[in-house]
C-alpha cells in the first residue's frame, strides 16, 4: 500500500498475467500454473503429431523406393508427384525459430544440385513414375486405329478380287497352288501378317512408352510401314 492511492492497485500484481487475464482480476497462481502446463502439454502433443507424420512419410518413401526397386518399371504404383527433398511443412511455419529458418535455407541450398536433373528430365511440374510421352501415346492410338481401318478397308476392297482370282485359277485347271499362290499371298497372307505385325508393334510401343524411351517411335513407324507395304502390294 503506497501513500498515493492511484499507484496502490498495480503494485501487488504479478507482472501482467499472460493468458486469460480477464478484466484485471488477479489470476490465481495455481490456475496460471495449470494453464502453462496445459500449454506445454499441447505443444508436446503437436510435436509428437509432427514426428508421427514425418515418420509415416519416411516409411512411405522407403516403401515406395523398395517397391520401385523390386517391381518392373510399369508395375510401380503411381507416386504422389512431389520431390521428397522438401522439408516437412508443419515445422517451417512454427514461430520462425532460427533452427527452422536454418533448415529451410539449407534445404533450399541443397535443392538445385539434387533436383536439376529431375527438372531437366521431366517435362511437367508433376514428377510421375510413368513418364508422360503424349506424342508416343498418340502415335500408338493412331497405329491401332489405322490397323483397324486397314482391316476393314482390306476386307471390303479386296475380297472380291481374291475370290475371283482363286476361282479363275481353279477354272484354269489349277492345283492346290491356287490356295497358296500369288493371289492368296498378296491379298490374304500378307495383310494378315501386316495387321498382326502392326498390333504387335503397338504392343511394343506401349512397353517403350511405359519405359519412357524414344525408340518407341521407331517401332510404331515399323507398324505403319508394314501397313503401307501391304497396301502397296495389294495395288501392284
Amino acid at each position, binding site marked *: 500500500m503506497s501513500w498515493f492511492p492511484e499507484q496502490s492497485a498495480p503494485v501487488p500484481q504479478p507482472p501482467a498475467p499472460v493468458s486469460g487475464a480477464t478484466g484485471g482480476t488477479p489470476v490465481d497462481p495455481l490456475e496460471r500454473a495449470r494453464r502453462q502446463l496445459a500449454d506445454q502439454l499441447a505443444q508436446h502433443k503437436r510435436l509428437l503429431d*509432427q*514426428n508421427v507424420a*514425418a*515418420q509415416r512419410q*519416411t*516409411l512411405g*518413401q*522407403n516403401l*515406395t*523406393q523398395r517397391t520401385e526397386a523390386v517391381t*518392373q*518399371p510399369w508395375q510401380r504404383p503411381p*507416386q504422389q*508427384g512431389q*520431390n521428397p527433398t522438401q*522439408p*516437412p511443412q508443419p515445422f517451417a511455419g512454427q514461430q520462425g*525459430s532460427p*533452427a*527452422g529458418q*536454418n*533448415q529451410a535455407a*539449407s*534445404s533450399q541450398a*541443397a535443392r538445385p544440385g*539434387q533436383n536439376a536433373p529431375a527438372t531437366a*528430365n*521431366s517435362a511437367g511440374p508433376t*514428377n510421375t*513414375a510413368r*513418364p508422360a510421352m503424349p506424342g508416343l501415346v498418340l502415335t500408338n492410338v493412331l497405329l491401332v486405329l489405322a490397323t483397324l481401318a486397314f482391316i476393314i478397308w482390306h476386307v471390303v476392297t479386296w475380297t472380291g478380287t481374291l475370290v475371283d482370282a482363286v476361282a479363275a485359277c*481353279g477354272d484354269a*485347271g*489349277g*492345283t*492346290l*497352288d491356287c*490356295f*497358296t499362290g500369288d493371289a492368296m499371298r498378296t491379298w490374304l497372307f500378307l495383310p*494378315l*501378317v501386316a495387321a*498382326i*505385325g502392326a*498390333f*504387335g*508393334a503397338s*504392343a*511394343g*510401343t*506401349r*512397353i*517403350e512408352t511405359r*519405359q*519412357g*524411351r524414344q525408340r*518407341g517411335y*521407331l*517401332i510404331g513407324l*515399323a*507398324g505403319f510401314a508394314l501397313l503401307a507395304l501391304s497396301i502397296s502390294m495389294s495395288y501392284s
Partner: protein
Amino acid sequence: MSIFDPYKVAANDPTAVRLGRATVSPTLAGTDLGRIDQGRPQASGALYAVGFVLGWAAILLPLILASLVYLTPFAVDEGWQTPEPVDAGVVVMAGTIVPIVTAVLATILAGIGRRQIKATRNGAGAVWLALAFGVLAVATVWIGDTTGIPFP
C-alpha cells in the same frame, strides 16, 4: 528414423543437431522418384512385338495348314489336281494332330518368351521366342513335305 535415411526425423526434431541435407546421399530418399534410371535393364519393345507376332502365328499358322490339308480332298472332288494323293492316316496326322500340338507348344513357348521379355530378361525371352519359331518352322516344313502342300 530409418536405416535408409537416418537424418529424416532428426531434421524434424527441434532439439536435434542440424546436419543439413548435404549429408544425405542423393541415392537415398532424396532422389527424384519420377525419373527412370536408364541403367536399369529394360524390356525390349521390338522383341516384344516379335513375340506378339509369334504368339498369333502359333495359332493362325496351324489353322491355315490344317485347313489346307483338309481342303485337299475337296479340291480333288472339284476336279483340281492335288500334288499327290496321300493316305487318310497321313492326312489326319498332318491335318489334326501335328497342328494342334504345334499350336499348343508354340503358344506356350511364345508366351514364356513374352513373359521373360516383360520381366526385362531379353536374352532368355529371345531364346524362348526362337524355340517357338523353330517349332512352327519345323511343323510347317514337315506338313508341307508330307502332304505336298506348297505353303511356304
